[in-house]
């Protein structure tokens, strides 16, 4: 166990971001992002490629300075006090930038030198669990082994905050499961916090308590995962005669259908919606739960269609490669 007493109070958010914006030349990469990550939480960040997830993570690690707005990690400014912040953070980047010429055991010794809190027994336990050969060269590792080596050096100093950028990107279902299991075990260790980005919604759904959906640099939806799932639902409406245009309902995020039957993905008060349906002259013939996929597509699709520079096909890929093997 890491007995390092955190300097911030237990009630202080581990990550506090308020109104953070960032522009790269003419592109607004982050647009007034605000979110808090509480201690012990697993916070999932979802979004298509280019939504701003990695840019946000770079700010959390102090690799980018807030252009406007504020960002605190353990109530510290990660740009002004990188050592104080990063010594308490474990990080796995999407491209796993590990030194290729090193052997696995050298990588472990090298990383250990940066961390006073390094737990050598734990590192050895993870190495065995991940079946990593200590004599293997980093550049000869498979993608899965590389990810596991990256996770090992991110975890072995038992960080208070684990930050993972697309941890299972490009991995097969077996390695992906091992990565998720490691996340689950990390949270089960008292008080540890995880912030991770993914475009795999069922991964986010399995392990996060709270999530934020990003599109075009903006957070389009955030909240407790179970509340998000419970507050969104699908109503199927039946009309006596086909409506001339798709039905308009307040709180409707997405309307699909044709002829007499239309399905509306809603977020709102059921009683008011039911009354609105009656006013439209229709009746509700079915109500079903909305999946996170559907909520994401409705929210992000909407966002795309209202922005000046839409990329129509890009957001669709976000849900196409959800792994069935994880079910």
């Amino acid at each position, binding site marked *: 166990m890491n007995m390092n007493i955190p300097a911030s109070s237990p009630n202080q958010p581990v990550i506090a971001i308020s109104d953070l914006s960032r522009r790269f030349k003419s592109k607004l990469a982050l647009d007034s992002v605000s979110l808090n990550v509480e201690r012990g939480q697993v916070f999932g960040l979802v979004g298509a490629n280019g939504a701003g997830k990695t840019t946000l993570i770079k700010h959390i690690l102090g690799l980018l300075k807030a252009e406007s707005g504020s960002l605190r990690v353990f109530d510290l400014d990660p740009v002004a006090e990188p050592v104080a912040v990063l010594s308490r953070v474990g990080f796995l980047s999407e491209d796993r930038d590990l030194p290729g010429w090193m052997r696995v055991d050298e990588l472990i010794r090298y990383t250990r030198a940066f961390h006073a809190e390094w737990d050598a027994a734990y590192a050895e336990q993870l190495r065995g669990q991940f079946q990593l050969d200590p004599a293997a060269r980093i550049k000869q590792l498979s993608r899965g082994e590389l990810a596991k080596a990256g996770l090992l050096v991110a975890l072995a100093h038992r960080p208070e905050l684990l930050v993972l950028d697309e941890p299972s990107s490009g991995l097969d279902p077996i390695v992906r499961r091992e990565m998720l299991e490691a996340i*689950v075990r990390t949270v089960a260790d008292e008080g540890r916090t995880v912030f991770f980005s993914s475009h795999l919604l069922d991964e986010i*759904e399995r392990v996060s*308590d709270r999530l934020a959906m990003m599109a075009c640099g903006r957070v389009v939806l955030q909240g407790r995962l179970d509340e998000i799932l*419970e507050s969104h639902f699908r109503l199927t409406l039946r009309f006596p005669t086909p409506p001339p245009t798709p039905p308009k309902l307040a709180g409707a995020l997405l309307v699909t259908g044709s002829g007499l039957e239309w399905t509306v993905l809603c977020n709102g008060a059921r009683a008011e919606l039911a009354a609105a349906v009656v006013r439209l002259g229709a009746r509700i013939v079915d109500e079903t739960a909305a*999946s*996170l996929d*559907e909520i994401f597509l409705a929210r992000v699709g909407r966002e795309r269609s209202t922005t000046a520079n839409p990329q129509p096909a890009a957001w669709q890929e976000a849900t196409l490669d959800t792994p069935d093997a994880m079910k």
Partner: protein
Amino acid sequence: MQLHISPKDGVPIYRQIVNQVKYLVGSGRLVPGEELPPIRVLAEQLVVNPNTVARAYAELERAGIVTKRHGSGTYVSDNGSPLKRAERLKILAQRADALVAEARHLEVEISELLDVVRERHRAMQSKE
């Protein structure tokens, strides 16, 4: 305890756990006094957030399905939960719906269907 979690169907995972444990208790697959896996163990087995499992267990406790024993674990409540009979009937109602729908599809009258049920019951009893 075998649970099957399926993200994607829109039902929060804590609720899937609650529903399936209720089902296992209602159907007798989990018996009174039986211990449920510790939160951490079940979280790792299902690869879900331990906080989610904790929430499901708390909900099951509130519903009287399970009891937390101080300093030890979580157990299926003795003398059954107050919901036990209602839950059992609910499970049967779902099966009955499917059976009635199929009978209608096959153009079998409800009285004939009941005869089939009684006949199967007799056949099963004679085997025991």
